[in-house]
């Protein structure tokens, strides 16, 4: 860590040389320490993405895989479809529906988790210090519980024989079980359930640092509750709200397990459509194109997030 000056001095090197070799050594050491992680990630995360990009421009193979022939069909088929007989191109209803469903459900999930998550984060942040960690712990348990298990738990609730139908029957709201499972509503309920902790946690961490003296100052200066909320609390914890929204929206857009279980193949989202191309669909180039399409959508929202947060950070400086 500390350049070993003494030995070098004895050899009689000028001090600038000593510093130079020391910093060079440090540089070497840094890359040596970084290399195992970087190699693993390049091998099994970043590198393969490039292969996906290449595959998206190839021709699908007969059973699976690809034929090494350049083709734009994969990209075209993301939202268009080619008529098998005439070869003419038209917008693909099925794909558009799935795309719109993905965006619609992701938006709804984000808004609903925000409506439920913000008051919850506020509630936790306003507890006493001792209680706070307990409530927070209660949020972290579902957060770290296997996604599959949580989706499965929701599935049991919305099934025809599940407690939701049982409850509605008991209350005489309905006289026979209604089909909830395998609908968009089921997917929405599942995503709300699965992503709610992702909204609560970042808002809470903003809220936790919030200085309630500011609220007192607001009330002292004749602001009502609502105005204190709108003019003081919300602007200051905005970064937390933006972070939560992104953390919910981005994985919602690429959700796979939840729509697969709760949509049951009837209600698909982008993730399921992608997986389908590598299974029954057998169209790897289309799957690869869809993957990059999803990746691009995600990156747009992440960039938006960076823009939004850096702007709000600036206004605080």
């Amino acid at each position: 860590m500390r350049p070993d000056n003494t030995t070098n001095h004895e050899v009689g090197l000028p001090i600038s040389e000593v510093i130079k070799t020391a910093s060079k050594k440090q540089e070497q050491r840094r890359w040596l320490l970084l290399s195992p992680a970087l190699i693993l990630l390049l091998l099994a995360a970043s590198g393969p993405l490039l292969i996906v990009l290449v595959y998206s421009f190839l021709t699908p193979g007969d059973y699976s895989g690809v034929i090494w022939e350049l083709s734009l069909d994969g990209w075209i088929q993301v939202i268009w479809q080619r008529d098998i007989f005439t070869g003419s191109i038209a917008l693909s209803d099925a794909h558009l529906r799935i795309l719109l469903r993905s965006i619609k459900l992701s938006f709804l999930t984000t808004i609903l988790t925000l409506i439920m998550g913000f008051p919850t984060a506020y509630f936790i942040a306003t507890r006493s210090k001792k209680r706070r960690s307990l409530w927070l712990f209660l949020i972290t348990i579902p957060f770290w519980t296997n996604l599959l298990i949580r989706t499965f738990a929701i599935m049991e609730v919305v099934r025809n024989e599940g407690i939701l139908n049982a409850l509605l029957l008991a209350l005489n709201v309905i006289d026979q079980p209604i089909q909830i499972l395998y609908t968009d509503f089921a997917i929405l309920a599942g995503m709300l359930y699965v992503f709610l902790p992702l909204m609560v946690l970042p808002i809470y961490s903003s809220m936790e640092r919030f200085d309630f003296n500011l609220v007192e100052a607001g009330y002292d200066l004749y602001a009502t509750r609502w105005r204190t909320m709108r003019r003081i609390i919300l602007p200051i914890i905005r970064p937390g709200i933006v972070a939560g929204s992104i953390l919910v929206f981005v994985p919602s857009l690429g959700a796979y397990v939840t729509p697969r279980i709760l949509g049951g193949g009837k209600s698909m989202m982008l993730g399921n459509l992608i997986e389908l191309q590598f299974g029954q669909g057998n169209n790897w180039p289309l799957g690869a194109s869809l993957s990059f399409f999803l990746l691009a959508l995600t990156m747009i929202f992440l960039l938006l997030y960076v823009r939004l947060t850096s702007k709000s950070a600036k206004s605080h400086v």
Partner: protein
Amino acid sequence: MKQQRSEIAIRIEDITKIYGEGRGKVIALQDVSIDIPENEFFTLLGPSGCGKTTLLRLIAGFEHPTKGKIHLYGKDITAYPPYKRKVNTVFQNYALFPHMTVAENIAFGLEMLGKPKKETDETVNEMLTLVKMEDLKNRQISQISGGQQQRVALARALAPKPRVLLLDEPLSALDQKLRKEMQIELKRLQSETGITFVFVTHDQEEALTMSNRIAVLNSGKVLQIGTPREIYKQPSERFVADFIGETNFLKAEILGCANGVASLTLPSGKTVETNVQKGFSPEGTVNIVIRPEHATVVEDPAESLLQGRLINAVYFGTDMRYHIELESGETFTVRIQNNPDDKTSTQFLGTEVCIGLHKNAVQILKD
């Protein structure tokens, strides 16, 4: 008499505040009653945890009393939320809104009161001039210094023209020099605006120099209310005497008490007379206090009221402090102002000295 001429701005009536319940309960304030007249610079003084900040927060409406009432100009405001009270607070850490500019901070209260834009702008400018911050109008809060933040906090609280301004140790975050400046500044603002100031501090010097009247608090109780002069010269209790300024504590025997004058025997056996407050007739053995500057070293043994051995002499620039061990074993401090041709006094160390007292130097404590 004074109270009758000017109106009472804040009347605190028999306030008790208890936090928690059962075994964890803490009594923050107990049966506190204070009247603060209009246009007064009133200070709540006491050590940390004495309840002074709690009292301020009760007046502001951030907390509510367990028992008792608070009146603002004769109106019971105990049940009012803070945003319906015509009082404003300058917070200890200023609590300036970090996402707004200086001007936006100052305008906030006016906006909340629904003042027209033009009037708001005018008041903001007026306030900026008042606290000498015109040039920094559009700065962000994080771009101005601590002293400037202090001024903005003041301007923000004064802008809505509150009937009473509450100040919660507003100078504690400033360095010594800025602090002295702001003390003068606060005095000026108070007399210029004519608004009643209720000022919380634990700094006795600050309290003495700035206030019209002071209430000394300890452990949730008001010990004494009075002008700085009264509090300093006639402390009624040991805590007050000890907390404010330097003092000597002694025991004495009361010989008699009549017409507001008590005569008592000092530990040396000598007898002195001193004024006592109306309605107070001490008896038996009492605690007395003598301020160091109210005593002096005398050469004539006939004038001597206390005797002892000089054990230490400390040079303080403006004055000397002599520590004298009395015959009874206690240490007594005498403070004498230096004059241009004084000499070192260390040569007298270990010698017997005689102590004389100014008229009315002895104060009899109630406890």
